[in-house]
Structure formats: C-alpha cells, structure tokens
C-alpha cells in the first residue's frame, strides 16, 4: 500500500529520512516493501497486515509514527461551513438491518459543480498512484487515503423519494455496478436502496445509475459502518474486491463515520462549491460500548521474558490512544479506541507494548527442561531403514506432489476405486489425489529419459489416498522405478539394462534390513505389469505390494518407450511390527562341505522348487543352497535349462565324513530326479 512522505508530514512532524522512517515502522509491525523518490516526494510501499485496517491511511500510519517518536498527532479539522439547509428536508435514512449496518451517517451538498479537481488534490492522489476522476469522487478518495473511512457519493436526484434504505436484497433483484456489470443479488446481501430499488452494494460498490455525473448538482454523501463478514461474503460471492470492501472486511472504525463525512463534505464544498446541509444525519441503531481490557504489567513481563518498566508501557499505550486507568498498580483497565478492533484481549495489549519497544529488546533463553524426549518412533526408525535399503541399492529418493492427473491415477487404482478430486484445482494435471506413488515416479522417469539420462532409478516414500468414509484413507507407501542402465557407468563394468533381479534385490534387502518375518515374493498377475513379469509381495500371508515390469500400454500413456521395472509396498504393516532385536548365532566350530550340482531341468522349473526338494533331504544338515549359474544354449536340450546349485552341508557337533556327504548328495539327486525330473549334467549321462 502506497504512502507519501510529504502527505504523512501533514499529520505528524517527521525529522527522519524516509529510509529511517521505513525501518522504524518495519520494526513496529508495518513492514516496508520499498521506497521510491526522495524527500517529501518519497513514496513508501508498506505491507499493511490484515489485522491493521486502521493503518491503511495516512493519519493511521502517522499515529503509529507519532507513538514511536513521541511527536504529536495532528488530525485534520472538518470545518463544515455553518448555516447550511436542514438535512432532514433533503434526505431520509432508514436502517432495516441493524445487524449488518450498525451506523449510517449522511449529509447532502446542494448546488455543487462537478468538474476537475484542483491541483493540490490531484497531486496528492497521483502521489500514491490514484487516478483523478472528478472533484467529488476525488474528495471521497482523498478522505479514504487520509482518514481511512470509505465514503460513497450518490446523485441525490437519482434516489427515488430521496430516501436511503439499508436492507437485504430481495429475491431476484439486480443491480448494474459502477464497472458496468449486471449483478443478480441474493437475500443475504446487504444493499443501499432508495424507495424503489438497490442503488449500491453496501460497502463494496455503487450502482451505475445513481453515481455522480457531470450533470449532478445535489449530492448525498454516505459514511457508514457495515458488518465485516457480510461485506466479505457478498464481495466474494460476486467476485468483487474494492478499496472499500478491503477495509470494511477487515473492520472499519464505527466511531469515524461522522468525522469522515464532515471532512469530505467540507472539502467538496471547497472544491466543487455548494451548501452542506446541517446537521449530519446519523442513524446509529447499534452503538458499541467502549471495550475495556484488563492489563497486568507483570503478565506482560512474564510472557515476554523482558523486564519492561510500567512507565514505559503506560506511556506507549497512551501515545497509541488507549485510555489507561489504574485502579490497582498490578491490574490496569485499558479502554480500546474504536479504530482498534484488533485489540480484544490482554495479549493484544502486550503485543502493543513490545511492538513499541522493539522485539529485539527481548533476550535469548531456553525453555525449562520438560523431561526426556520420546525420540523417534518405531515406525519412523523403520521408515529410515527402508530409505537406507533403497539408497544402498543405488536408488535416488524422489519427492512428488500428491496431486496428479486422473488418467495417470486410474491404472494404479485398487480395483474399481475412484480417486478423490480437488474441487478447485489450478490445473487438470494436478486435480486428483494419488492412489499410488508409481504414476508420479513414471512422470519423473519420462522427464529423465527425455533429458538424455541413461540410468533413472528412483524411489519415493509418502502417502496415497484410498477411498474412505468421510476422509480418504491416508496410507504410507514405498515405491520404486528402475529404467535404463542397470549399473552406473564405469570403465570396468560391462553395461547392461535393468532386469527383474535389479527390482527384486532392493525388496529382499528391505526385508533383511527390517528384520521382519521375511517378505515373500511369488508370481502374480496384475494389469499394470507385463505377463510373466509380475511378483506379489506378501508379509505373513497378507498381500502388501508388488513388483515387476510395468506393462508397455501403461508406459505409453506416460510417453515412455523403453522397459521400466518397478514396485510398490504398503509400509503400514512393516512399520507396525516391533523393531526386531537380532539374535547372535554362534559361529560354526566344524568345517562345512560344499558340493556343486549342475542340473538340467525343464525351463519352467523354479529355483524355489529345487531348493525345497534339496532341503527335504535331511540326512545331513544343510546350511545353504545357492544358485550360482543359470544357462541355456548349446549342450542344453530345447525346453530345458541348466541350473547350477551349490549346497553347503555342515553339522553343528562334528566334522562330516565325505561318505555321508556323498550319500546325502546322492539322495538329493535322486529326489530331484523323482520330483522335478531333473538330471545331472555329467559324463555318465552324456
């Protein structure tokens, strides 16, 4: 909001340079955004906080400055020329809705000549970027920026029966506002009407057909106080925001209506001629008693942690035009001026005194110790482990918005579920709550691939939003996507593309790190995953996620034309498990014996089946069964695959003999033959 240095000096003596004034006010809660020009022509841009409508004008800001510097505040006199015609003979004011209009004051100016404003007035307005319109409107505008009270000037001759009725709009009533828009009103909107029709939206904007024109000679000047919420609702409903509504919404000063009216009437008479009617009509059906707020200096000191002297607090409150009574040294009675609607409680007065002193007078301390903290929760510690697992697998963390495109969300939605929408989105690509983390990550993959990145491994941990009764169900998930190269580029490594085992590995590592009952991965079918490349992830028989190769038709929608592996896991079950303490297993005291078996099996025989058969032979304890080669090609019959397996036999209590190992091995081979039709690749069977 713009303020002119020279204009401020009309109301308070300023000895400081504009920069210093800006700093002073910033320190007191009126932040300076910038200054243009120098000396009296300097124009400040202050940000006036929403709770300080009283500072949205030059006198109000001068009041703050006067309190800070100890100078006197000079409020301009109205000087209405005496002896004007009687007001009641020229206009009649009725408030039908005192709840929404607590006060309405008015005067008429008869015989005014509408024309351009004198220089001093246009210069003042121009200094803060206001465009001159005509002498009457310019005066109301000037008083708005001087005293802060919004005024409205009606052409009295266009008011039917010269009546003002403050009432709610009737059903279906319309009004063409000053901006030329026709507005259809509703019955909760307050209007200013004449005997017949609405002539203004109360506190927001006047109607075109009652505004001042060059032909106007008789004026009715309005200075009223409207209920903030009502003004705000109406302005919002009609999409209007004006200088007047901005102030009424935040709370204008009901005590100022007559003073502002008189000031403007006198100025109109000065710049446009005419007679001002006497006295001011002032309908005030709902006067507010002055608010008295108790104030304890000791409480202020205690809350601030600063030893402010009582004299300082009293003096500054008085400079800010609070009335301070001290029936008791420790408990004051402070009467709040009508322009300070933001001050309602003791803490508000405490803020007033510390604003005056400057917040930086307060020293640094620390709160008393409040007992041992709880530290991180188990769930949190487990989420950190999950991050560790994915990062140590070389996957970068991504963070995405929870707002996505509906079409992106659909393929990954649980069966038949609809995503929850945003009622007022900024754009359709961010209008729905995600039901999976994967769409966001696929968007990231597309971005990376489009920028020539050859290895894009990303994970994310965050909430998804599933259908719930009233609120959507927020579920924490972990998801990852792997695209492009499997390994980081290195001179010693042969490049290869990501494969399914790159996607499986991180999940296995996660299971190990979390130390929960193992995550079980088993073949599955899913619409978002390619056929034969889908694994379900379960934990204690509960399905908690999936991994695999994303189906090409899904990728197409994201503009990705190369394979992407990925997976998603619900974290809740994993986070809910108690953090496992790892038990020590004694190191082996006796040597183990390793045996390698090269098997020819049907190509759909899975390793977990082989392992199960191997372990089913328990004549000698088996410590480990590891696959170490998988081979197809010359020497392996069609439809078959060669799988090489290493078995580690170890007994806890003695050294195994080679005979017993051999007989166990023979039994294993026999079992594999019997159950899986496997045969050993050996010379005897060549």
């Amino acid at each position, binding site marked *: 909001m713009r303020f002119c240095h020279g204009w401020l000096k009309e109301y308070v003596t300023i000895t400081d340079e504009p920069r210093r004034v800006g700093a002073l006010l910033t320190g007191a809660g009126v932040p300076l955004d910038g200054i243009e020009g120098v000396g009296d022509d300097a124009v400040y841009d202050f940000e006036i906080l929403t709770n300080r409508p009283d500072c949205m004008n030059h006198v109000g800001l001068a009041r703050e400055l006067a309190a800070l510097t100890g100078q006197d505040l000079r409020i301009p006199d109205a000087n209405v020329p005496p002896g004007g015609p009687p007001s009641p003979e020229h206009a009649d004011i009725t408030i039908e809705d005192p709840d929404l209009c607590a006060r309405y004051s008015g005067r008429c100016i008869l015989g005014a000549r509408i024309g351009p404003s004198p220089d001093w007035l246009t210069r003042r307005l121009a200094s803060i970027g206001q465009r001159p319109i005509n002498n009457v409107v310019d005066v109301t505008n000037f008083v708005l920026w001087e005293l802060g009270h919004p005024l409205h000037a009606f052409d009295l001759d266009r008011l039917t029966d010269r009546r003002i009725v403050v009432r709610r709009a009737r059903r279906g009533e319309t009004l063409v506002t000053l901006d030329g828009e026709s507005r259809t009103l509703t019955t909760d909107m307050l209007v200013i009407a004449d005997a017949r029709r609405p002539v203004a939206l109360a506190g927001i904007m006047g109607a075109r057909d009652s505004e001042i024109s060059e032909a106007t000679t008789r004026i009715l000047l309005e200075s009223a106080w409207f209920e903030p919420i009502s003004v705000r609702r109406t302005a919002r409903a009609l999409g209007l925001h004006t200088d007047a509504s901005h102030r009424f919404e935040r709370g204008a000063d009901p005590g100022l209506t007559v003073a502002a009216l008189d000031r403007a009437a006198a100025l109109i008479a000065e710049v446009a001629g005419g007679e001002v009617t006497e006295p001011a009509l002032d309908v005030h059906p709902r006067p507010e008693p002055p608010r008295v707020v108790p104030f304890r200096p000791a409480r202020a000191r205690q809350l601030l*942690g600063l030893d402010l002297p009582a004299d300082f607090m009293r003096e500054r409150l008085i400079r800010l035009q609070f009335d301070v009574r001290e029936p008791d040294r420790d408990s004051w009675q402070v009467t709040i001026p009508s322009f300070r609607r933001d001050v309602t409680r003791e803490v508000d007065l405490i803020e007033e005194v510390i604003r005056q002193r400057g917040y930086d007078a307060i020293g640094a301390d620390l709160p008393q110790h409040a007992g041992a903290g709880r530290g991180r929760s188990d769930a949190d510690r487990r989420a950190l482990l999950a991050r560790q697992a994915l990062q140590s697998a070389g996957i970068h*963390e991504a963070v995405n918005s929870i707002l996505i495109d509906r079409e992106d969300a659909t393929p990954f939605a649980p069966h038949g579920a609809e995503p929850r929408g945003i009622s007022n989105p900024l754009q359709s690509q961010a209008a729905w709550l995600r039901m999976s983390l994967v769409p966001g990550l696929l968007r990231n993959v597309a971005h990376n691939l489009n920028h020539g990145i050859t290895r894009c491994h990303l994970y994310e941990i965050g909430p998804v939003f599933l259908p719930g009764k009233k609120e959507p169900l927020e579920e924490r998930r972990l998801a990852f996507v792997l695209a492009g190269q499997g390994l980081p580029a290195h001179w010693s490594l042969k490049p290869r593309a990501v494969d399914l085992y790159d996607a499986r590995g991180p999940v296995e590592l996660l299971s190990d790190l979390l130390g929960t009952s193992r995550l079980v991965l088993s073949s599955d079918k899913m619409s978002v995953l390619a056929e034969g490349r889908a694994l379900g992830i379960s934990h204690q028989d509960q399905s908690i996620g999936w991994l695999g190769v994303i189906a090409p038709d899904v990728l197409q929608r994201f503009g990705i034309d190369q394979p992407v592996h990925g997976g998603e896991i619900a974290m809740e079950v994993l986070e809910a498990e108690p953090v496992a303490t790892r038990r020590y297993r004694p190191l082996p005291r006796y040597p183990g014996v390793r045996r390698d078996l090269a098997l020819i099996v049907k190509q759909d025989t899975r390793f977990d089946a082989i392992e199960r058969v191997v372990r089913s032979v328990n004549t000698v304890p088996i410590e480990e069964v590891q696959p170490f080669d998988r081979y197809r090609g010359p020497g392996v019959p069609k439809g078959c695959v060669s799988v090489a397996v290493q078995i580690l036999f170890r007994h806890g209590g003695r050294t195994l003999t080679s005979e017993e190992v051999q007989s166990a091995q023979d039994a294993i081979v026999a079992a594999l033959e019997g159950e899986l039709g496997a045969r050993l690749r050996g010379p005897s069977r060549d």
Partner: protein
Amino acid sequence: MQERVKTIRRRFDRDLAAAQSGAAVAEVRVRYLGRKSGVLTTLLKELRDISPSRKASAGKAINTLKSHVESALADARGKGTAARPAPPGDALDLSLPGRVQLPGCPHPISQIRSRIEEIFLEMGYALESGPLVETDYYNFEALNIPQYHPARDMQDTFYVEGGLLLRTHTSPVQIRTMQRQQPPVRMIALGMAFRRDAADLTHSPVFHQVEGLAVDERITFADLRGTLEHFCRRMFDRDLRLRFRPSYFPFVEPGAEYDISCIFCGGDGCRACKGSGWIEIGGAGMVHPAVFENVGYDPERYTGFAFGLGLERIAMLKHGIDDIRLFYENDVRFLSQFPA
C-alpha cells in the same frame, strides 16, 4: 561333458577372484585339486566310466581345465599378498577411477528434514504428524481463523471433494497434539502443505513446512528467541544473529516474523539479502490464548510458543538453488548433486 567343464571353469574363476588372501587361495586349491574330493579329481575319476568314443575329447577338455586351474593358482600364489610388487608388464593405470557401489541420494528436502529433526530431538522435542487432507476445523477454526476471516486470504486453499481441504500449513498438528496430551508439550511436525498459488521460481502449490510448539508453565518469548537462535545456528552452521519483526498470524500473539543475518555476506548487504543484511526465515509467536481455549488448556496457567518455516527455502538457501520447481522434477542430475 564340455558344458560341465565350462561351468566348473566359470565357477573356479569366480572363486579364485574372490580369494583375497593366501589362505583363501589355498582353500580354493584344495576345493578343486584336493586329492580326496577335489572337483577336478572327481571329474578325472568319472572319466573312467565314460564311453571310449568320447573319452578323448572329454579328457582333453578336463586337462585343459586342469592346466588353467594350476597356472591360475600359481599366478595367484605368485602375486601373494599386497606387499609383493606387481610383475613388470602388468602395470595398473593408477589414475583410473575406483569402483564402488554408489548409493542413491536422499532427496534434498529429506536431508533438511532429517537435520531439523535431529536438532529438535536433541532438545527433547517429539516428532508428531497429522493428515494432509484436513478439516476446516483443524486447519482454520481451531487456529483462531474463523470462517470469513480475512486472514484466510493469505492462505489460498485447495478444497477436497467431501467438504475437506488440503492443509495450508502444518499448524493443524499443533491442535491434534494438544488435544491428545496435557502440557508440557515440546513437539515439531514436518510435512507437506499446499497453497493454491501458481508455481514460479519461489512458489510451489506443494511445499514442506516444519511446525514447532512448546507449551508449559512460564514459557516466554525469550525462550522462543533462544530456541530459534539455537536452531538457526545449528541449521546453517554459523554464528548468525536473529531479528524478530512484529507480524500477524491469528494463532499467535504477539506474532512475529524472524530473519537471520545474511549467511552470504554476514549482514553487510549483498544481492542475496537485497542489501538489507537480513534473510527472512519464517513466522513465530506466543500461542494465542484462544487456541489454548479451543483445546481445553487453561490460558492463564500455560503459555507457549509456536513457529514455522519452509523446508524448500532452507534447502534453497543452503545449496544456492534458485528454482523451487527443481525439487519436484526429480531430475537425476539434480538429485545426485546431494549425496548426503
């Protein structure tokens, strides 16, 4: 047989490569050449049973394998431990980059988040959280921002179907925490928040905030200053100064914004601080008694402070990032710049 020999050879090469010590090499020797049950010994024994037509080729393959195994083992022993110099002609290019399994990088926002959590956990604060899809009550009403309050203009809101909204700040977690527990309270809450602002260099409709709250008997504004001073100094690893300016947030009174002395110029004035010597960090203040009343705390007995700040802003300041949108593109070239 040929295939089997190949498999064994592959397996041997792998085992030998993995053997890092003399003892390990010896173990590999026993496993393959051991007289009793060495892999090759067994293979040679099996040769006896093979049909004569194939014996010759099989024998040749096994012998080739055997000589490979023997010479490789001899080489390995020759190299022995690291102390022995490498033979000439086998010089390594010592300037080539080394090999390591590169870990993935935590997102810069996560890193800032962890750091903030650490600093406050050390001070005994609890980490709290709340839903992102909130009700009007928790996001506004309980925080002393009633319907049609002009302060709602400062927080343009995304509304969610079903009469809900996306939280515009992390402050609702204050309310949820106070409803759950009696004082003393020391908590922070970190997470996403949303404002219906078009994205530009410094604004994003999605961003991250941290909210702090301490409630007890006799908490003062000086405690707030001390806490934030400690936090900011640890966060930026500098002995910086703090400045408080009066400001307005309906849920605190007195309310403030706080700045740190510029971390680039130390307060002399530079481009980063627009010559002011100060950098804006966040909002803070003493908990408004109306908020205490809303959660059933006695505002006469208890006082408290609350503060907030944006994580993106901290990350941008710390790393010199000039476009907030980079945080949500997840470009690998960006993410990998922050290994930890």
